């Protein structure tokens, strides 16, 4: 190919790394997806007859327990910020530890949420028994799915960092997605659990 004729490949301006920009755009679409779910929830709740808007058997959504889970998730986000700064300063070993901590905290959140689901399911709250339950499982489940994907991403980033082969773009991309998962959660929590 005549590419070789050009002594130096032309310089192209990439003010924002492509991976990060792509992920930001994806996150924007995801925000709209969750906005759609939350607007559906809000409208349905406002229009439903009061009696139809409850869980079967007098079960109430465990807001207090979930508050604890939420704190775990928020901490994970904070620890990831720490990892970011350590990485920027070149302290790879310390950064890897923070990254691992953030990943574990995130995984803990998903597991704690799973335990909560298990409790609700065992008390007969399913998607079919009430529309509130259906929305609960749909919205929280979708979030958990996103969290699980992001945790895999963070885990891979940690593994690569330990082997000293973490491309900055990969880390920033995974990081951006995890911040999105963390940031959208309070909105869901305050909307759905109360």
């Amino acid at each position, binding site marked *: *190919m*005549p*590419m*070789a*004729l*050009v002594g130096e*490949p*032309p*310089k*192209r*301006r*990439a*003010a*924002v790394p*492509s991976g990060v*920009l*792509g992920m930001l*755009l*994806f996150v*924007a*679409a*995801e*925000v*709209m*997806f*969750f*906005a*759609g*779910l939350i*607007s*559906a929830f809000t*409208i*349905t709740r406002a*229009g*439903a*007859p009061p009696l*139809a*808007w409850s869980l079967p058997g007098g079960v109430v959504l465990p807001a207090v327990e979930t508050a604890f889970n939420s704190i775990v998730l928020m901490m994970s986000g904070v620890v990831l910020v720490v990892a970011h700064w350590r990485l920027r300063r070149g302290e790879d070993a310390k950064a890897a530890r923070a990254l691992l901590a953030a990943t574990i905290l995130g995984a803990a959140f998903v597991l704690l949420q799973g335990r909560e689901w298990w409790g609700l399911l065992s008390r007969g709250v399913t*998607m*079919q028994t*009430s*529309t*509130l339950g*259906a*929305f609960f499982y*749909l919205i929280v489940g*979708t979030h958990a799915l996103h969290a699980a994907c992001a945790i895999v991403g963070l885990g891979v980033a940690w593994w690569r960092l330990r082997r000293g082969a973490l491309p900055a773009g990969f880390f920033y991309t995974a990081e951006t997605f995890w911040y999105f998962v963390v940031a959208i959660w309070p909105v869901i929590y305050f909307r759905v659990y109360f």
Partner: protein
Amino acid sequence: MSAHAASHAEHGHHEQGFVRKYLLSTDHKVIGLQYLFTGMLMALIGGFTVYVFRMQLAFPGEEVPLWGRVTAAQYNALVTTHGSVMIFWVAMPVLIAAFGNFLIPLMLGCDDMVFPRLNRLSYQLFLLSALILIASFFVPGGPFGGAWTAYPPLSADPAYNATPWGATLWLIAVALEFVAFLLGGINFITTAMNSRAPGMKMFDVPIVIWMIVLASLVFMASVGPLIAGAIMLLFDQRFGTGFFNPATGGDPVLWQHLFWFFGHPEVYVVLLPALGIVAEVMTTFSRKKLFAYRTVIFTAIATSIISFFVWAHHQFVAGIDPRMAGLFTVTTLIISVPIAEMMFIYIATLYGGSIRFTTPMLWALAFIAEFLIGGVTGIYLGAAGSDVYFHDTYFVLAHFHYTFFPIAFIATFAGLTYWFPKMFGRMMDERLGKIHFWGTIIAFNVIFIPLFLTGAGGDHRRIFDYSLFPELAGLQGLRVLATIGLLVLIAFQPIFIYNFINSMFRGKVAGANPWRANTLEWAAPSPPPHGNFPEMPVVYRGPYEYSVEGRDEDYWPQHVPPDDPKRPAEQVA
């Protein structure tokens, strides 16, 4: 980017197998053509369905050749398939994905998309979605028949729609298709941001790229709520939830809210690329600089923003709070301002030009002339007071076909005939092209002008036999006329297909720049090789520097250095 360029350069030497080269390629041009051909095949399905149900409307109860007698259930399925196929599997893939994939890297002067494998995944998902839709024809109960808008509870409960599998497959196909375009859109936007040729500022980017990027942004921002709604509807269909079931506290109108939040911006998602194609063709063949380039972009941005504030005009009589209708009437009429301004700009571009009536130019001019009809009839429907009458009549149908047909077919034909030499390295036959043009345009008007009249006369949509409505009997002549128009329109399409395939192999060989155009894709050889440019271009000026005073040539390609005014454009051919 340079890493990509290098890897392409290495791979360019050895021959690839057919599968690697055409089916699993990550080359943006191959993916663009894959989208194009898939879209064209789907257009045949969409065209066949419209043939069957228009025949039924003109000659109710009679055997339709190639189909047989049309039942009510079949009629609904045909209408639904026609609508969904033409919008989601023809207009979207051809206008955004095919032209976007083919043109963006070429017009920006780079070797490929930023995420080539994401791009391939996008096409594979799209193909899968098309196959799922086609598969829904062969499941028990037949394909979905609840209109492309799929309002629940009809679409949510097999007891109501009698298509237990068709409805689910339709929904999965649509959702998958959205995911495919989401991935594609991210790719387009990132590429346009990060891979422009050196020297190419944002305002040196050709209008069609701007439009495709804006359309992708609008699509990405609007599709989320619909995917959310589609998942809820899927759960209602298959897992017995009651999101849209009023008996369990669900809300049937909620779907319309989520659907039209996407549905209206979607119109602009396909309109903007069409306008972009028309801008490219019109400037080239009138040898004129685009009038007020920046204003075009600003009006397009304004349109994109306002498009998020108009969607409830589809729901004026849907049982929403009627006071909301007032609000949306205001925004709907407001959106006519930027669109009208854009039309004026396109018309003004012709002023002082030297217009050559090639086939692509005829299509581009026809786009303006026909789209104006679609635009002005929208006012009747955006004004809540008259929409009370026109809602869900054939007037609506004729209105949006006067917007969608110019978008999905007229602009596509303009783009295809214009970029055909770049895609395949050969010219299309002009005489056949013109015959096809006139046959299509005249037949198109013969179809839809009568339908405006039947709509004004009270014909409602999606009714398979009007003989039950005595007041509408007098309109049968118009219905027959529309069907005759359709048959003529269909009869002219084989000319295009013949011309397309024949020219691909036997057309006159085109040079790199047969139209003497300015934009970067014409700096690459035709067809461009893997990696596109033998020498990565550098940009020195805007894309529409035609007929610049004091130059011998009436065009001045973006990549030709300024110190070399007489340099011919064929230097890379």
